[in-house]
């Protein structure tokens, strides 16, 4: 590890911290309707409602909210599926790419509608520009906007008293897209173009290399997809190697900006939460918990990667950092990014549900792989995707106050609401959906020939490849461990099922909790109320997250990355 590496990590954390309050306040004002819509977006918003026949003043109960969300994503899945199947007949297809196979098209459609962006394909060789722009990019916007809408609905449920409604899904979706996502994407998109990211409808370029070889250089409308790819928690790259490709991530500066984009909204939403419930400290506590878990993760991964490959210890290989080499485990990493930046990116992307990568995770040390999987397995509450990270950690907060209530024999309360059996049942349904999808599907794939056929490694590493794939799907992350040949009907369909469960079987109980809490009257703070804006509660929340995640997934992790690390003969 180097001082420069830690300085980069500290700079990144500081920059994220600086954006939390202003952006969180802006988002709160947008969803509270207290921020005057900027021109020309205000008239555009009203025009969209008129066009769709939506009364923005008409709020919905949680069931109507959930039904609207499901209808929205049903349309998104069908549209993206149709675009892929018909791409051979559609314009903006200079590579003359043919229709995507049905199972791959379904996997991709579900993947982007669920904010996962698992990719069983290479973007530049599979999808035409019209599918990338009108399909992938549009779903990236809609999936993150709906995640933010769900989180805001849950916060309203906590903030409101004796209310039958939690907001209007269509209004929340529109406001998130128009006032939060589009402005940021427009500005940062231009920045990326300035830094060298292509934005063109021109075809692949044929080039002759210095050695005289012929090479096809893929390009396309990359910059417009790149920003929402990162900011949405989606992570689906235009190119197969994602942010390791110089056209997606050309330089150290873009690498830093890309990591910031991944955490930008998820971190800011904690402040939005604090403001909407009338106590910003509540939001800082959640952000503090995320920061502690993030720091622990990056410390382990950076140390593991910087210490190099233990299998090389007996060989005449110098793995120490020096002026001429970065040292450590550089397999699968871009030389221009190095150990610290790659380790940070991998942590950020698995903490956040984004799934973009700037290095190949299959080549990370097993201990790093364990941490990256664990980041996703704790329901991606370490910042998380915009919206899903916030409602995920709020679910754990409900479990934490419930556990605290059990310990003192008192009905648990959170933010002035009594937490009763209904909320605990719904919370557990949401929290169990992801492990059920991950562990159930991994178990099935581990014994079926169709699952084993995709592996390129045996033993613990092969198991890690399977576990990582279903973890990535179930936690709606989308990053790939690599090494798994996932473009087969079995993997395409089973991963699609994992993504569907991991997204919607969580969102529905979350909205049920929101509706149930909104209907309750408030209870006054008393001497017996557990203060949830304290360090004590932060510690309880960290313990709850680690124990629930640890107890659920430790056996699977022991069979995969932990066994592999111990086989290597050393923990570091």
């Amino acid at each position, binding site marked *: 590890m180097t001082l420069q590496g830690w300085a980069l990590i500290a700079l990144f954390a500081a920059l994220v911290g600086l954006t939390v309050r202003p952006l969180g306040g802006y988002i709160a004002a947008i969803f509270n309707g207290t921020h005057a819509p900027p021109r020309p977006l205000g008239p555009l918003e009203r025009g969209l409602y008129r066009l769709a026949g939506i009364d923005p003043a008409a709020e919905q109960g*949680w*069931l109507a909210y*959930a*039904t609207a969300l*499901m*209808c929205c*994503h*049903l349309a998104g*899945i*069908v549209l993206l*599926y149709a675009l892929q*199947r018909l791409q051979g007949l559609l314009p903006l297809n200079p590579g003359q790419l043919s229709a995507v196979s*049905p*199972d791959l*098209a*379904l996997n991709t*459609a*579900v993947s982007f509608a669920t904010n996962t962006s698992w990719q069983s394909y290479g973007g530049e060789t599979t999808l035409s520009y019209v599918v990338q722009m009108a399909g992938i990019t549009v779903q990236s916007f809609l999936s993150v906007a709906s995640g933010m809408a769900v989180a805001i609905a849950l916060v309203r449920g906590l903030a409101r008293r004796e209310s039958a409604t939690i907001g209007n899904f269509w209004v929340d979706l529109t406001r998130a897209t128009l006032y939060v996502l589009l402005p940021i994407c427009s500005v940062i998109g231009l920045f990326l173009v300035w830094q060298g990211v292509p934005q063109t409808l021109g075809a692949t370029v044929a080039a002759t290399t210095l050695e005289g070889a012929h090479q096809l250089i893929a390009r396309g409308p990359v910059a417009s997809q790149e920003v929402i790819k990162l900011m949405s928690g989606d992570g689906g790259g235009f190119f197969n190697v994602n942010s390791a490709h110089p056209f997606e991530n050309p330089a150290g500066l873009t690498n830093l900006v890309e990591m910031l984009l991944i955490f930008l909204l998820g971190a800011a939403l904690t402040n939005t939460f604090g403001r909407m419930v009338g106590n910003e400290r509540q939001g800082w506590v959640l952000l503090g918990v995320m920061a502690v878990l993030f720091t622990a993760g990056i410390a382990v991964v950076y140390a593991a990667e910087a210490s190099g490959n233990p299998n090389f210890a007996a060989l005449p290989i110098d793995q120490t950092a020096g002026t001429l080499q970065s040292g450590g485990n550089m397999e699968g990493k871009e030389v221009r990014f190095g150990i610290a930046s790659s380790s940070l990116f991998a942590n950020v992307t698995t903490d956040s549900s984004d799934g973009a990568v700037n290095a190949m995770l299959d080549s990370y040390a097993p201990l790093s792989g364990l941490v990256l999987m664990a980041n996703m397995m704790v329901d991606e509450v370490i910042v998380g995707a915009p919206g899903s990270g916030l409602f995920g950690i709020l679910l754990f907060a409900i479990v934490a106050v419930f556990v605290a209530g059990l310990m003192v024999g008192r009905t648990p309360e959170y933010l002035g609401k009594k937490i*009763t*059996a*209904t909320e605990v*049942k*719904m919370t557990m*349904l949401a929290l169990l959906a992801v492990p059920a999808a991950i562990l159930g599907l991994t178990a099935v794939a581990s014994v079926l020939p169709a699952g084993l056929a995709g592996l390129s490694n045996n033993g613990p590493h092969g198991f890690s490849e399977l576990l990582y794939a279903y973890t990535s799907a179930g936690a709606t992350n989308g990053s790939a461990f690599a090494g798994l040949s996932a473009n087969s009907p079995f993997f395409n*369909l089973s991963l699609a*099922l994992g993504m*569907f469960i991991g997204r*919607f*079987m969580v969102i*529905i*109980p979350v*909205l*049920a909790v929101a*509706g*149930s809490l909104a209907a309750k009257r408030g209870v006054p703070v008393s001497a017996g109320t557990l203060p949830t804006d304290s360090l004590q509660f932060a510690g309880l929340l960290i313990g709850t997250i680690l124990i629930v995640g640890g107890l659920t997934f430790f056996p699977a992790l022991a069979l995969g990355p932990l066994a592999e690390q111990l086989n290597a003969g050393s923990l570091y």
Partner: protein
Amino acid sequence: MILDLIMVALVLTAVAGAIAYARACSQLIQDDRQALK
């Protein structure tokens, strides 16, 4: 074409299942409220 119909049917079934799941959650909440009265 048949595969396309199967895929669309799978999606419709999954979404219908999710909405039915939401309704079951709603019923559970109502049952809990009744039990508390």
